[in-house]
């Protein structure tokens, strides 16, 4: 049987997704039994021009990581879509925008101003900003906002996670090899919420009596984070990560994306916190006391939308 043709590409990402591919360890040899990798900038010297010369649908599967921040990334998304039979949004950035998406809290101008002019380590007395055209050279257009991949092209499958857990990568590749992928549009991860696979004690009724940052308390590794006052995104986040953060005594920050019935993960989580925070005392607390308690949630957007801001209803800074 002819080998399958794979491609891996990165847009606005950190490189962690490439490492996740290597984290499948010796399983990579099995991948190479069934597939050849034609395009993978971190590992192979294939140029964009070579990809442009492929016939349409030449690639069987492209694993595309990173969100869309500039015009080059969008062009590459369109190019790879055209050249691929199956395209997988690989990792949180391609799925929901992820950490780079938090820059949607700022305008394009504010980002360029900060990065090229006012950071402590910047020396740019003439205030020069990158130009899209200069002396015959071009740079991609830096967009007003970060977009998840499915805002610019159609995506066949979603592999969530920051980065995707190795077990899910292996099972996706196995299903590709066997030709047993589910219907298009499927998220290749379990549908249950992380809370359902958490091994911490869930016998106690879920109540939050305070809000604490992780550095403000010693965390009992056996108790639910929420019961200890630490915000854990487990109730609104998909499982499939093998609870890797929880096992390291770190609360879930939500990288696996929302469970299928949730439209907006941050809103869902805010609603969950609203129903368990000081629930026994809500009738006796004054507005002022309540508001002081809520103020203890530092950085609410970064907490509830750490990975999902560009895919959320609030999406980006408005009115400017």
């Amino acid at each position: 049987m002819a080998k399958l043709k794979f491609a891996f590409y990165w847009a606005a990402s950190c490189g962690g997704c490439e490492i996740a591919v290597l984290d499948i360890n010796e399983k990579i040899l099995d991948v190479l039994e069934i597939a050849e990798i034609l395009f993978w900038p971190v590992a192979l010297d294939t140029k964009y021009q070579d990809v442009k010369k492929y016939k349409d649908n030449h690639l069987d599967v492209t694993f595309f990581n990173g969100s869309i921040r500039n015009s080059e990334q969008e062009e590459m998304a369109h190019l790879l879509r055209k050249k691929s039979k199956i395209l997988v949004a690989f990792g949180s950035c391609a799925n929901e925008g992820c950490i780079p998406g938090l820059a949607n809290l700022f305008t394009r101008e504010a980002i360029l101003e900060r990065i090229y002019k006012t950071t402590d380590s910047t020396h740019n007395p003439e205030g020069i900003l990158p130009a899209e055209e200069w002396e015959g050279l071009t740079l991609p257009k830096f967009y007003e906002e970060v977009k998840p991949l499915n805002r610019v092209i159609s995506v066949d499958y979603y592999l969530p996670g920051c980065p995707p857990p190795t077990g899910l990568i292996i099972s996706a590749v196995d299903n590709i090899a066997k030709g047993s992928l589910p219907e298009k549009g499927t998220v290749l991860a379990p549908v249950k919420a992380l809370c359902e696979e958490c091994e911490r004690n869930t016998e106690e009724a879920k109540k939050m009596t305070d809000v604490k940052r992780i550095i403000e308390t010693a965390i009992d590794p056996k108790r639910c984070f929420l019961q200890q006052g630490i915000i854990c995104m487990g109730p609104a986040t998909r499982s499939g990560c093998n609870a890797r953060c929880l096992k390291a005594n770190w609360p879930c920050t939500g990288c696996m994306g929302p469970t299928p019935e949730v439209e907006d993960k941050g809103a869902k989580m805010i609603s969950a916190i609203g129903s368990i925070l000081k629930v026994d005392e809500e009738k006796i607390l004054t507005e002022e006391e309540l508001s002081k308690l809520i103020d203890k949630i530092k950085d609410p957007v970064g907490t509830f939308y750490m990975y999902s801001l560009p895919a959320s209803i609030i999406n980006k800074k408005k009115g400017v």
Partner: protein
Amino acid sequence: MRRITIDPITRLEGHGKIEIFLDERGNVKEAYLQTPELRGLGVLKSSVSEGRQRICRS
């Protein structure tokens, strides 16, 4: 004037493009390394980073 474009540069972590311009005798006249990617994370100052213990997982 001849122009050599290397796009992308590969087998390293990150995005890059090299443009080389040669003169009539084939010698390098100008060479440019371009970084086409900017994620814009540098803007996430205290308002967002307060309370964060970690911003990049890799």
